[in-house]
């Protein structure tokens, strides 16, 4: 059955590859509508079909017998449809409007370098990993583990899809409404895995903080340089002291940048850690 499924998907995908739609040859026919006589109501009965007398169809009233037959047919039809069709209460998907992807970046951190999984770190900024309920954690895990590994057909997830799924995992960790369906009972974490996953989230949150610190250090540079220049101009410090102070600011920025580079590398390795947790029993 699995082989047949795979074959079906292959057939569907090969169809997809050919399905580049180009309707431009049809342009000259746009706006065509079927002739009026083809669009008349179905129940209209032609009792006078002699075109020489009138081209307008004339209806005759239904007989009582016909109406009763129609009533019975209608009752039977309605009962049959209502019996067979899905019921409104069977539709359990959320009707809450969810803001779609395309957020303005990962916590105002320059993108790309830390990779798609930086979005996940944002979740732990709002909810510490230790405070995430196990159900939400399982949902987040189900999404992330799918994003981190190739699917059953060998497809790997693209960067943009991984970013989308990481965002969804972040929302799941905070108990929010999702744009993907997760059946968390089929992906439960073992106690060891849960501990490792909470640790991963904690680390991601700390790494995000480190990257935020770098942004702050950069923002401070201009202000501190202005202060040093003013102090020098006012004669409060000597040129040598000004140089030393500038060097201190420079060293602080260097330190923040180095730490941030390490944090970015750590976030980039999140998928590897997820695969490691997957293999852990």
């Amino acid at each position, binding site marked *: 059955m699995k082989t047949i*499924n795979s074959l079906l998907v292959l057939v569907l995908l090969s169809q997809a590859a050919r399905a580049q739609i180009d309707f431009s040859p049809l342009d000259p026919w746009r*706006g065509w509508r079927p002739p009026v006589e083809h669009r008349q109501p179905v129940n209209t009965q032609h009792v006078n079909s002699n075109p020489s007398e009138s081209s307008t169809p004339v209806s005759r009233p239904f007989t009582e017998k016909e109406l009763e037959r129609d009533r019975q047919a209608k009752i039977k039809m309605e009962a049959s449809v209502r019996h067979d069709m899905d019921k409104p209460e069977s539709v359990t998907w959320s009707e809450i409007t969810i803001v779609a992807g395309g957020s303005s970046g990962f916590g105002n951190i320059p993108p790309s370098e830390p990779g798609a999984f930086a979005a996940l770190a944002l979740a732990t900024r709002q909810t510490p990993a230790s405070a995430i309920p196990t159900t939400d954690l399982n949902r987040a895990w189900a999404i992330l583990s799918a994003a981190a590994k190739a699917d059953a057909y060998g497809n790997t997830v693209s960067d943009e899809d991984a970013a989308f799924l990481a965002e969804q995992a972040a929302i799941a960790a905070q108990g929010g409404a999702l744009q993907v369906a997760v059946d968390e009972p089929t992906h439960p974490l073992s106690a060891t895995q849960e501990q490792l996953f909470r640790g991963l989230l904690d680390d991601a949150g700390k790494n995000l903080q480190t990257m935020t610190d770098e942004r702050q250090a950069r923002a401070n540079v201009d202000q501190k340089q202005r202060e040093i220049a003013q102090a020098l101009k006012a004669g409060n410090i000597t040129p040598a002291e000004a140089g030393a102070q500038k060097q201190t600011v420079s060293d602080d920025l260097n330190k923040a940048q180095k730490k941030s580079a390490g944090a970015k590398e750590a976030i980039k390795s999140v998928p590897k850690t997820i695969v490691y947790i997957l293999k852990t029993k």
Partner: protein
Amino acid sequence: MSCKSTKHDENDHNYTNKPMPALGKQPNGKSLMKHIYEHVLLTVFSIVILVPAECQSTTEVYAWDQNQSSGQAWSDKSDEFAKNGDSEQAWEAEAQAVQFLPDDPLILRDFCHRSFDAGRYRDVVWSARQIKDNYDWMMSAPVMVEWSSSLGVLGDYKQASQIIREAIQRMNSGTETGRFPAAEWSTYMHEWDITFAYLMGDFGDALAADASVFPSGNAKHHAVYGILLQHIQEIGGMAEKHNMRYAALKSQSYLNKLVREGIEDYYLYGYDANLKAAGASSRELTWKLIGWYRSMPIKPVPPPEAVAEYKKALYIIQNQSSSGDFSHDSPWFEAEKMLFDVTRRVPWWAEPHYSLAILAKNTNRRPSNNYYDQWPADTRNITAQELLFCVGANPTGPDASAAKKLLKKMKQPIPQ
């Protein structure tokens, strides 16, 4: 105090003092690492040698100077790659420049363009947002159009619409003609505005948007449909090209809706051969989207507005009378229209296909519109086709078993 070393190591991604991962060979064969190494060396050389001796004691290479130098070197490199048409390498180099100079508006603007060319739409959104929030005085029409269409690719139509409308407003204000030249951008911006109006609403909303741009009547009807077809194919194509399956599924589902509306409601594809061709392509598109959906490791959920519409249709059928004749103002007629609409919007959602099949099977009446390549549509065909889509989209779903039984009765092949 000593000057910082600028020694480079190709294996070291730390970009503070010894950065620059190799990005491959330049067109002339010189490695990028070597090029940038030379560039930075020259900068340090000019500081150390060219600065008069009496000033050297107070001249330092501070972290920000190094950032400026390295960032500019990466950005220059990105320009070279872009000129040679290598959009991926150009994006990588500009992404490095942004790491050094995240607050430089020119670098941010270039990063926005490079990201768009490389299909990194989240980075486009990020960089454009940085420019808007911090350097609005240099916001331009190309950045806003790229920002808006990137949001479109990512599926955030509401924000995309807001951005393009702001761009149109700025263009029309006449105070920023240098960065928002109407002659170049007016038509394009209005087309995107119309497209997002459709993606957030329906064809009527698209017709109502930008009423002043197109002539009224049939000509407008056709012009707007053509624009929608082109731009929705564009955003769907951009997502598909970069293997963004979730985004592509969303936008191409809207394409599915548009094409079927063109065929079935507005008769835009004519009759006979034209209807056959468009209908066949439309059915192929539906199967393509079902195939994508089936291949996804984590399945997307139906959009909330489609869920609401589906539930409303089911509620009407369960609680209101059919009026027997399905006249155009009857509740069941409205419910049938809603079911058609849901299957167009979310062709990969199995349950609405099943419900539509059941309605078609039991009512046994001829709908007044087309159905894919068929006019007039035949209820038996609608039933069979919708059952096939239902089983194809979810062979183990809640309705799959009943759908398979009906297909078997109808002597139809059963999708696996």
